[in-house]
């Protein structure tokens, strides 16, 4: 795979006929690469597909597999970093093995995608979190990694929260005042932005009156759905409290860091050129051919070379809305995420604790 060429492709400009033959060819090559280089991947494929990669599809690994096994396509000496997903103490975390090349590629692709939304210049950056969240160098938690990754696109990094999650209103006002004549970049995790920033400012009847900003947020709607907060509510309340802010949610996961799916002005998530989304039927996990039907999201990405994470079946529900014809003008597939699949019911003897 020639990444020097791949990285130069326009992020959202190729239509289906231009993108998919190229993308699929690269993905198949990548699958063969992992088949050769990852013993575990080879064992799984040999077991489930009679000894060789199937010709008509690139099999997806269940994303949960990375919570149980350290899957890698590189030798142990070449491990540069192992990133982990966040998780509460009772949950197991995903472990993603990266070599230098893969880690660098993730950053590069992320930067190229972000440029589309933030512009080419670094912007003054307000982080809706507390500074301690990245201090622990040994644990690359998803929150820490996310903030560090995004920090590259900003300068004058200012944390909006104190360690107890209260607003550091002094720091926030000073930051806004200082950069009142330029566009600023705000970043945070969806729930934290809502709960500890927007809601708290609203309670205090504070309006920040920002003149020009882009806010990117991620991390999932689960907790907000529980509170029945829609994307529209989120955006309108945010604009009331903060001012003139363009809001973009994005979808991504630690298992495929780099290829994020950013929400456009029409409120749909867009596939960048280096990744693709497939919907699988809820009834049997077969590929859903039609758009507009909710199913399980599979994410395919060309980035993972150091671990076999190029095709992953998530546990998120989503709908592909269309391809090449979003009203925002971007080409490629656009979709929405409808939340997580309900947790599997345990019917065995081992569920006293529910």
């Amino acid at each position: 795979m020639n990444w020097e060429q791949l990285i130069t492709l326009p992020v959202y400009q190729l239509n289906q006929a231009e993108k998919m033959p190229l993308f699929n060819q690269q993905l198949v090559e990548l699958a063969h690469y992992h088949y050769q280089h990852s013993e575990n991947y080879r064992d799984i494929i040999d077991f489930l597909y009679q000894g060789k990669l199937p010709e008509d599809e690139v099999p997806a690994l269940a994303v949960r597999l990375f919570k149980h096994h350290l899957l890698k396509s590189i030798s142990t000496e070449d491990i540069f970093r192992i990133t982990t997903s966040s998780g509460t103490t009772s949950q197991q975390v995903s472990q993603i093995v990266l070599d230098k090349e893969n880690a660098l590629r993730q950053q590069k692709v992320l930067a190229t995608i972000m440029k589309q939304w933030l512009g080419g210049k670094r912007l003054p950056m307000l982080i809706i979190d507390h500074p301690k969240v990245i201090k622990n160098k040994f644990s690359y938690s998803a929150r820490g990694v996310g903030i560090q990754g995004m920090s590259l696109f900003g300068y004058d990094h200012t944390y909006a929260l104190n360690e107890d999650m209260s607003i550091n209103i002094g720091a926030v006002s000073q930051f806004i005042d200082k950069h009142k004549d330029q566009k600023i970049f705000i970043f945070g995790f969806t729930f934290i932005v809502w709960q500890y920033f927007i809601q708290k400012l609203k309670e205090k009847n504070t309006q920040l009156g920002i003149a020009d900003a882009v806010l990117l947020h991620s991390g999932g709607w689960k907790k907000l759905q529980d509170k029945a907060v829609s994307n529209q509510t989120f955006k309108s309340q945010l604009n009331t409290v903060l001012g003139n802010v363009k809001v973009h949610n994005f979808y991504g996961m630690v298992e495929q860091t780099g290829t994020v799916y950013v929400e456009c002005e029409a409120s749909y998530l867009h596939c960048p050129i280096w990744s693709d989304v497939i919907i699988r039927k809820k009834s049997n996990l077969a590929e859903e051919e039609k758009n507009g039907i909710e199913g399980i999201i599979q994410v395919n990405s060309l980035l993972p070379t150091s671990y076999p994470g190029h095709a992953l079946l998530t546990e998120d529900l989503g709908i592909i809305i269309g391809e090449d014809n979003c009203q925002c003008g971007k080409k490629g597939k656009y979709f929405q995420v409808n939340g997580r699949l309900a947790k599997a019911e345990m019917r065995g003897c081992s569920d006293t604790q529910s």
Partner: protein
Amino acid sequence: MILNLKNSPLRLLLSKNKTAVFDDKVTLPPFYEGTIEAFSQLGLFLMKNGRREPSIVAAGYWLRKKHLLTIKQQYHDRCNTAKGVAFHIAPGNVDTLFFYSIVVSVLSGNQTILRISNKLTQETQFFIELLADFFNDHKKHDAVYALIHIIQYQHDTDHGHDITLRLSLFADARVIWGGDAAVAEISEIPQKIDANNITFPDRYSVAVIHLENDSEIGNAVNQLITDIKPFYQQACSSPKVIYWLDTAQQLQEKFWLLFIEKTTKQLSLSTSDLISQLVYLQRLPLLLNHPVKNKLNVEKYNELHKVDVEFITLDAIKAHCGLWTLLSLQITTLADIKLFSHCQTVTTSGIDVSIIEQWQQSAKLAETAKRFVPAGQALTFSHIWDGIDLIDSLTS
């Protein structure tokens, strides 16, 4: 002693008349005539009114008078008094296990308080409604009804933890179902001095099948379905492994064809379960290729996956999540079977009783498998479970 939990955030199921005040003086003699009478009547009631749930009918059948008296006879010279108060922690989704736990406890004469999951299946809710209906309509069994309490509370909150602690300190016996995690977590909570802690950690079960001719296939298939279908093969006593004892390949093929025919549209899984099944299948080669490569092959029969293996690993058993996966091994003699120490039930089909008895007595097996039953009876409850005599443990 009286334990008053009236002001604690807990819910009493069964009857609105019950209050969360528990008196350890309220007990009955073990195998008290009135108890046997009440339960055998309840059995008839369940078989009649619970017809739409096979597991409830089976519970009713278990309560037939003759069966209860047979159990009584096994204890005629011991078990003279009830322990007192028995606190049970039951799994919510093995729909009927909570009930057997209550029955054995009440047969032993104990004041029985059973904590049930907050997420009840429809079957369990229906079962509890039937119990309430029966006792509310048969006031003459009030003395027995007075021993039965089913409660729900949020055990993972401070209040919930307090309730568990107070019940544990109040009870003379604590029965913990629900596997390793539940046993470890709840066992840490202190109990009354001299109280019994009766625990049921994770177990797995296996099936041994021997077929000699076509005529045996139908029964063997039916029995396997009976043993794995309830609770989506997730009950500890549902087999996860099939050992084919000296059985021709061609008979096995016919077995699976018939299995497909008999299970069409019966084993469908929810999306979450489909993903859990996929996760297990994708994990299997990684779990089975230790310490040496295993020769594996997977076949799909409706939703069920049969996985041929050369040997079994503990990891593959521990990760098994039910949902229709059977590990399959070919053996030429029973001595080829190697069981892990947490094996619970061995079901057998087509094998002579004397051969099984012989095998059972072999020293190695004695410390592993706890229970040998004919195929089709894997899920049939017994008052001796996992090698624990529940009646003995709940009386003195």
